[in-house]
C-alpha cells in the first residue's frame, strides 16, 4: 500500500515537474485550450440569453386589441368572445385604463410624473390575447386579426407576427450553428492538446528512452503525459470560465453605462452553474483525450 501511494505521488510529481520543465509549451497549450473553451462558452452564453429573449418575446406574443373610448362593457365582452372561440388564443386578459397607466408608470419611471400631470387618463382600455405556441406560427392568425378589426368597438390591433417569426428563425439557426461550432471547437481543443502533448513527448524523446532503458514502468512513462494533458485541460477550462465571467461583467457594466433599455432586455444573465461545470469538465475531457491520444504506442515509441 505504501509503495502504491509512493508510486501515485511519484506519478503526480512527475506530471507537475514535466509541466513545469516545459512551462512555455504548457502555457501555450493552456492558452489555446482556454481560447477554445472560451469560444464555446461565449456561444453558450449567447444561446442562453437568446433563449431568454425568446421567453421575453413569447411574453410579447400577445395580440393587443385597443378598444375605442366609446366602447361599452357589452362591446368588450363580444370582442373577448370572438377571441375565446379561436383555437389560436390561449388566454384573454382585460387591461383597464387605470391598469394601463400603472404599467406605463412602472416601465417608464422618469415619465411617470408627466403622465400623472396629464388631464384625465389618456391610456386606452385594451384586451390582450396570448396566442398558443401553434398559434404564433399559424397562417390563420391574419384571418383572426381581420375578424377582430371588423368589430365596431375595436380601435386598433397591435401584433407584429413577421418579426417574431424571423427572430425564431434566427434563434434556430444560431442554436444549430452554435451546436456545430461547439462540437468543432471541442474537437479543436482536444486536437490542440494532443499535438502539444505530442510535441512535448518529442522534446522528451531522449528522456523517455532513458526511462525505458533503466526499467521505468509504462505507467510512469505515459502517466505523467496523460495527467499533464488533464491538468492543462482543467486549467484551460477554468481560465476560460474566469475570462467569460469577466467579459460578461464588463459587458454588463458597459450596458449599464449606455442606459440603453433595449440592450438591457437582451443581456440578462450568465450561463448556469451546470453549464459552467460542463465547460470545465469539457476542458478536462479534452485534456484527457488529447493526452491519451498523444501517448499512443506509435507516438511514444523510441
Amino acid at each position, binding site marked *: 500500500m505504501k509503495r*502504491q501511494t509512493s508510486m501515485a505521488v511519484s506519478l503526480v510529481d512527475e506530471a507537475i515537474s514535466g509541466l513545469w520543465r516545459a512551462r512555455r509549451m504548457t502555457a501555450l497549450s493552456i492558452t489555446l485550450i482556454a481560447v477554445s473553451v472560451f469560444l464555446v462558452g461565449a456561444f453558450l452564453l449567447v444561446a442562453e440569453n437568446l433563449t431568454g429573449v425568446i421567453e421575453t418575446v413569447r411574453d410579447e406574443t400577445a395580440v393587443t386589441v385597443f378598444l375605442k373610448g366609446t366602447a361599452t362593457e357589452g362591446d368588450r365582452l363580444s370582442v373577448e368572445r370572438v377571441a375565446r372561440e379561436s383555437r389560436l388564443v390561449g388566454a384573454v386578459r382585460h387591461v383597464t385604463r387605470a391598469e394601463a397607466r400603472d404599467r406605463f408608470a412602472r416601465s417608464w419611471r422618469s415619465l411617470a410624473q408627466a403622465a400623472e400631470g396629464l388631464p384625465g387618463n389618456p391610456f386606452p382600455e385594451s384586451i390582450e390575447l396570448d396566442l398558443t405556441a401553434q398559434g404564433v406560427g399559424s397562417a390563420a392568425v391574419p384571418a383572426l386579426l381581420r375578424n377582430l378589426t371588423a368589430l365596431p368597438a375595436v380601435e386598433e390591433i397591435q401584433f407584429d407576427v413577421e418579426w417574431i417569426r424571423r427572430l425564431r428563425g434566427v434563434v434556430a439557426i444560431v442554436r444549430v450553428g452554435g451546436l456545430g461550432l461547439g462540437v468543432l471547437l471541442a474537437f479543436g481543443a482536444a486536437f490542440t492538446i494532443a499535438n502539444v502533448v505530442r510535441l512535448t513527448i518529442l522534446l522528451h524523446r531522449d528522456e523517455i528512452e532513458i*526511462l525505458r532503458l533503466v526499467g521505468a514502468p509504462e505507467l510512469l512513462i505515459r502517466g505523467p503525459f496523460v495527467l499533464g494533458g488533464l491538468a492543462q485541460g482543467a486549467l484551460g477550462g477554468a481560465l476560460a470560465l474566469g475570462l467569460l465571467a469577466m467579459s460578461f461583467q464588463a459587458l454588463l457594466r458597459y450596458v449599464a453605462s449606455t442606459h440603453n433599455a433595449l440592450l438591457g432586455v437582451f443581456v440578462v444573465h450568465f450561463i448556469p452553474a451546470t453549464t459552467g461545470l460542463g465547460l470545465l469538465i469539457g476542458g478536462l475531457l479534452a485534456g484527457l483525450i488529447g493526452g491519451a491520444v498523444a501517448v499512443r504506442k506509435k507516438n511514444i515509441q523510441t
Partner: protein
Amino acid sequence: MIEFYRVSKDYRGRRVLKDVSFQVRRGEFLFLTGPSGAGKSTLLKMLFRAEKPSEGNIVVNGMNVGGMPVARVPELRRSMGIVFQDYKLLASRTVFENVSFVLKFLGVPIAERRRRAYQILRLVELHHRLNAYPEELSGGEQQRVALARALVNDPELLIADEPTGNLDHRLAEEVMKLFTSVNVRGTTVLVATHDQELIRHSGRRCLTLDRGRVIEGLVEAALPPSAVHRLDEGRTPLDGGPGDYRPPLPRV
C-alpha cells in the same frame, strides 16, 4: 548469471552476431572486446532486451530474455544497472534527480531515496554536486553520475558499454576502480571496451568478438576476482557470510 545459447542476430538480412554461446558466472567480472562493428553493442543490447535475438536463447538471472513478454522487460532492466557510453543522463534534471529517479518508480519513499542517492553519490565522490546539472559536469563526472544511477538500485548485474570511451587515461582508471569495487561486493560486471591496455592491466577474463563471432575467451577463469579479493573486514560475498552481507564500497 548470463547464458547465451547459439545466439544470432540479423539486421535487415545482415547477420551481425553468429551463433554466439558463452556463460558468465554470478559475481564474475568480464570484459567484452573486439573491433568496431564486431557486435559488442548488439550483444549488450540483447542482454537488456533493447534487441531481440533472431535465433538462440539468452538467459539472464534465470529469465529468458528473448522470449519474455514486453510487459516484463522493465522488471528485467530494473534488476540490472546499465552504463552507457554517452552516459544518457537527463539534461533537465540535477545530479541528485538523475540518480534518484530510478528509485522513484520503484516506489521507494522520498526519505529513503534521498538517503540512498546521497550514499551512492558519496561513493563516486559527487555528493558535493547534488544540485548541478549534467552540462555543468566534466565527462568523467557525468560518467560517474551514470555509474551512480546504475548502482543506486543495488543491481545484481552491471553492464557498461564503452564506459571509458570518452575519458582520459586517469579518469578511465578511476571508473575501472569503481567497477572493481562494485564487483567485489558480489555484483556481476560486464564491460564492453576497445581499450586493450585496460583489459590487460585488469587481468580479468575477456570475451573477444570479431565480425559477430566469439573468437577468444570462452574458457572461464578459475575463480571470479571477487572471490579472492579480501577487504579490511575480511569477508567477501563468496565467503558464506551472513545473509546478504555486502561490505561497504571503498571510495575511489
